């Protein structure tokens, strides 16, 4: 049985930030991730990130992953265990994990869950055909493994992920036949859309996929227009040849551990699905369990990093490490991180998250 002061589950931007923040205040931290490499979804992001200097703006996602990982590796109070899959949270507060075929047991004083989010899927005929892939899968294939996902892609979804992955496909030499978006407007940043449009990729707003077809694998996609009630408009079908249909219709938080731990869970659609109720310090209804990053609400990597910092600082302070080196290190940090989150969320793009958090905590 291992008894670290703080166990952080998930070494994406939120978990890496949480571990470093808590360790920097002096807490003893173990950080685990099921993947062989730290960085979470950042390792697939070849584009420059937004936000401000504190969130590595204008730095490419892959390089942010490298920097955050290096910080953690250099932090003497943090032990990072990769290739370590957390299997469950047991009623006695023990967390079971698997590593190299062996079971590890953890009984930490504080737990920070930073497990991120997973692709949603969409029901339509043919959605199980080989060639219908989640957006993350397409990114993993081309940006991590260096394999082209296909010869011609239709992208479903014009949120940031759909727009960014379309651009990355072009960079990998794979043509994108079209981006299809059910809403009447483009949901992602318009600058991402503009980049894609000037590369000649059409964006069909108010359209949805009618069916995907192919004998043993995807050969084409039929799309059709939808009206303002999201109902198909007859006679508007377009048949697009494609061997990859990339589904980028949103993410939903990976909350199994929080359900198992008995946290108060609520369904908040603006945050992506079920999330744990949490206070401003990101502590859930179960004392000692914190959340950070997409698992607390699907958002952006920039806010994931800041939430990780916030949860790490609060968890460490709750164990008595709030003094840090100069007697009161944690409180100014906590306030600074709260202010950074407010700044990231106060514009029009942050409205959905603000509404979601409001519904959750009211």
């Amino acid at each position, binding site marked *: 049985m291992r008894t670290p002061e703080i166990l952080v589950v998930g070494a994406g931007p939120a978990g890496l930030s949480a571990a470093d923040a808590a360790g920097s205040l002096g807490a003893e931290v173990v950080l685990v991730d099921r993947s062989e490499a730290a960085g979470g979804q950042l390792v697939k992001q070849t584009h420059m990130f937004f936000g401000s200097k504190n969130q590595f703006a204008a730095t490419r996602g892959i390089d942010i992953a490298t920097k955050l990982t290096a910080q953690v590796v250099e932090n003497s109070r943090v032990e990072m265990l990769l290739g370590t899959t957390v299997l469950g949270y047991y009623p006695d507060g023990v967390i079971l994990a698997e590593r190299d075929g062996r079971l590890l047991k953890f009984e930490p004083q504080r737990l920070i869950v930073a497990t991120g989010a997973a692709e949603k899927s969409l029901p339509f005929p043919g959605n199980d055909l080989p*060639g219908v*892939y989640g957006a993350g899968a397409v990114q993993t294939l081309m940006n991590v493994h260096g394999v082209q996902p296909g010869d011609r892609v239709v992208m479903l979804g014009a949120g940031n992920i759909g727009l960014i992955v379309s651009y990355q496909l072009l960079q990998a030499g794979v043509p994108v036949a079209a981006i299809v978006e059910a809403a009447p407007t483009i949901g992602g940043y318009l600058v991402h859309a503009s980049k894609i449009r000037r590369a000649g990729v059409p964006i069909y707003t108010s359209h949805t996929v009618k069916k995907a077809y192919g004998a043993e694998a995807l050969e084409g996609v039929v799309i059709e227009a939808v009206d303002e009630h999201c109902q198909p408009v007859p006679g508007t079908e377009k048949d697009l040849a494609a061997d990859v249909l990339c589904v980028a219709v949103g993410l939903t938080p990976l909350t199994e551990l929080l359900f198992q731990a008995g946290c108060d869970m609520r369904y908040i659609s603006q945050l992506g699905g079920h999330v744990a109720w949490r206070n401003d310090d990101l502590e859930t209804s179960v004392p000692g369990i914190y959340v950070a990053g997409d698992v607390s609400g699907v958002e952006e990597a920039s806010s994931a990093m800041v939430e990780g910092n916030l949860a790490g600082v609060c968890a460490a302070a709750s164990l008595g490490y709030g003094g840090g080196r100069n007697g009161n290190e944690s409180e100014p940090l906590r306030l600074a991180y709260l202010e950074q989150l407010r700044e990231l969320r106060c514009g029009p793009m942050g409205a959905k998250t603000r509404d979601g958090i409001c519904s959750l905590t009211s």
Partner: protein
Amino acid sequence: MSRITSHPVLDFSTDRRLVTFTFDGRELEGFEGEPIAAALHAAGVRVLGHSPVLHRPRGFYCAIGNCSSCLMMVDGEPNVRVCVEKLREGMRVETQEGRGELRAHS
């Protein structure tokens, strides 16, 4: 589809070695340590199995071990998530029809 050799942002040069493995009896090549699904995809293989009841073709979906779409038999072991399982020299990879049968381990 093929392996990406040049990219405006990423560097795919590698010192991993190429190893051979079999897929349903066919000899294929891939990089040691990459996920089996990546090696198969680079070789043009996208159908990884068929569903248990309706025998519909299956490929991968999430590519990071979440969704169970990519389950194949590897060296006789069923239900291996090939999107995360690392390729080793001489592996015997087979499409899995249906749910797979667990071997008895002595």
